[in-house]
């Protein structure tokens, strides 16, 4: 806010200078007419301001409290009290959230079981919700039990068999949840022959898989496994399978992942 613009100020603006929202659908016409009557009874001074952003010199775009605009227009007012807010994405989003016109979204990556259940309950209670009938206690418990940190979308929920199926139900979640998956992992280390790799080289590759939680390796101890492999007699190995017999939590499925980093 500065002395040379109107940001943060309550301004009485000509209605002609304000562009209304193009997506807002006001409640029934009788409510608008009654509200317009109430507005005219108090000399047309709207005490609830329209929230606007300045889009260019002497031009404003309604951001939220759209009902106020509709009523003022219906009442035939030529000017309207508006609060001018900063013209930036997060500021506009915040104003819409605070006005209750937009539901704030919850980060499912980190949400607690209780929050997940509250959100699911809220979504299920909306008229015509596709989540009606979903047991929110079960669904929330199963989702919360999962490691959600690497989820790129909501599809892993389908596999949890918690009543949320692919399609409408899953899509509904996007209205209230978002995910903040970690950035994609950096380039993997180059592929190396398991027979010739040093302990350090084996560690480097296992550590990559562990750190970035690839192929279930997040439970593997890279230091322990690299030591075991490095000390094994690898000269006659014909595959990576001997690793599965080293009692180090690496099974046949994990060997598949290892094949991306090790050759024979």
């Amino acid at each position, binding site marked *: 806010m*500065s*002395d*040379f*613009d*109107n940001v943060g*100020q*309550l*301004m*009485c*603006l*000509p209605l002609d*200078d304000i562009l209304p929202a193009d997506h807002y659908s006001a409640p029934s016409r009788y409510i608008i007419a009654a509200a317009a009557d109430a507005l005219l009874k108090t000399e047309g001074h709207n005490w609830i301001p329209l929230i606007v952003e300045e889009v260019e*010199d*002497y031009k404003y775009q309604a951001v939220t409290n759209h009902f106020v605009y509709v009523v003022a227009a219906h009442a035939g007012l030529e000017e309207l*009290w508006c609060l001018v807010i900063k013209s930036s994405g997060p500021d506009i989003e915040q104003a819409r959230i605070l006005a209750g016109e937009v539901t704030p979204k919850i980060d499912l990556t980190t949400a607690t079981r209780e929050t997940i259940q509250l959100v699911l309950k809220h979504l299920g209670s909306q008229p015509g919700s596709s989540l009606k009938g979903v047991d929110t206690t079960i669904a929330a418990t199963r989702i919360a039990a999962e490691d959600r940190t690497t989820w790129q979308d909501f599809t892993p929920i389908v596999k949890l068999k918690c009543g949320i199926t692919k399609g409408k139900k899953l899509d509904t979640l996007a209205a209230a949840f978002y995910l903040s998956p970690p950035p994609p992992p950096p380039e993997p280390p180059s592929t190396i022959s398991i027979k010739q790799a040093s302990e350090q080289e084996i560690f480097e590759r296992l550590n990559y898989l562990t750190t970035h939680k690839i192929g279930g390796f997040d439970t593997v101890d890279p230091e322990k496994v690299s030591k075991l492999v490095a000390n094994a007699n690898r000269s006659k190995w014909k595959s990576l399978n001997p690793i599965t017999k080293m009692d180090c939590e690496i099974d046949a499925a994990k060997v598949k992942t290892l094949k991306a980093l090790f050759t024979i």
Partner: protein
Amino acid sequence: MVMIDWSAVLANIPPKAIENDVGTHFIPYLLEALGFDTTERAGQFATGVGGDCVDFAARKNTADDVFSFTRNDPVLMVEIKGRFTNAGSSINLTEGSSQYVRTREQIKRYLLSPKGKTVQWGIITNSTHIQLFRHHDKVIVPATKCIEISEVNIEAVISSIKKLIENTVRGLCVCVYNNKGGVGKTTTTVNLASTLATQKKKVLLVDFDSQRDLTTALGLKPNNIKLSECLKDRTLDIRSTIVPYKLVQNASKSSKVYHVFDVIPADLGMEAFTQDTQARVQKASARLRDLLKPFINEYDYIFIDCPTQWVFFSQSGVYASDTVLIPTRHNDLSSLHNAARVVQEFVPKVKELRQDGGPIALPIFFNGSPSDGRAIDMAREEIDEIIGAAKAASNLNLAPYFFPRIVPGNIDKTVFNLPEYAAVSSGAFARVPAVLKHKRIHEYYLALAREYFLNE
């Protein structure tokens, strides 16, 4: 018009280009893009002061005058610097750097030279930075900020400079302001404006002080459409607020009416300026500038008289101006300190918001002072302290704003002073500016006008 591949032009400039390289690899393209072909440019243009030459001068040819042959009446001068000196050290033209200040002063000198009289525009550039200056009589104001050129912005930067050059503005907007009262702002405004009017300049005065001193002193009344209403209502025509100030001279048999200047008077709506009023002024203190835009090509000078204190009216006045003229009183130390605040705080704040290089502060002057004596010495000592404090606090050199005649090797601490007689006599003008009644006072103010504005 020839399309210029600026990426190729920039790529062809040696990274360690010296002045000559910039002159060869950049300036011809720049001048071409600004609309001056090869016959419309002249290198090493003599300014008429000793052996002084500006690197380039330019003007569009007319039917019988090819500029590169006649070298008459240039409209643009270009001062080139290298990216590096011949000795290999880099040249930094970032606004505020010492090399920038030196280059800026150099182009000012050229524009004020005998051959610079017709020049309306000055450019400084080293091909990494560029700035355009506007020349209005004796005043040189930035027309853009000093812009860093890159492959990404160069086309837009040069096209905006071209647009400015093609739309030469007639007027200069001057705000008369000091954050301290009692320095004679209104008296200065009225008498300076009258003096410029006697020199055939078309002048508009804007009384943007809610106390309405200027309006009252001239015996004027606002029209039906008032300035305060125009601030709020964009459908009103600001031209309708203008009231001409005329002087009636009664000779023995007949009376003659002279139009001196135009005034936009202050009105009661400004005195009754409330929170509710302010809520109707879109763009807040930036609004006055928009209101005065229609006049910038109709008048030679627009003077804005504003109140003391950094409030809506004075903020608007400074924001709307190209330059700020700061009267002080030598025996009012607070007026000197407040003048420093205008230069240090308020002008930079507005400059930052405007992003077009303006406004700039003109050096201060003493209003109503003796030319020397103990009191003047004391004022100089106080100014020395102010300059020292600003240097220590923010490394800002205020010396040019207080002692504009200081040049390297010559500590000349002269401050322009308007003699006491002029201030006292003109302070009590009765509906007629003192300069129009007293020859001596007219001479004093003419000296003030020549010091700051008239380029004769």
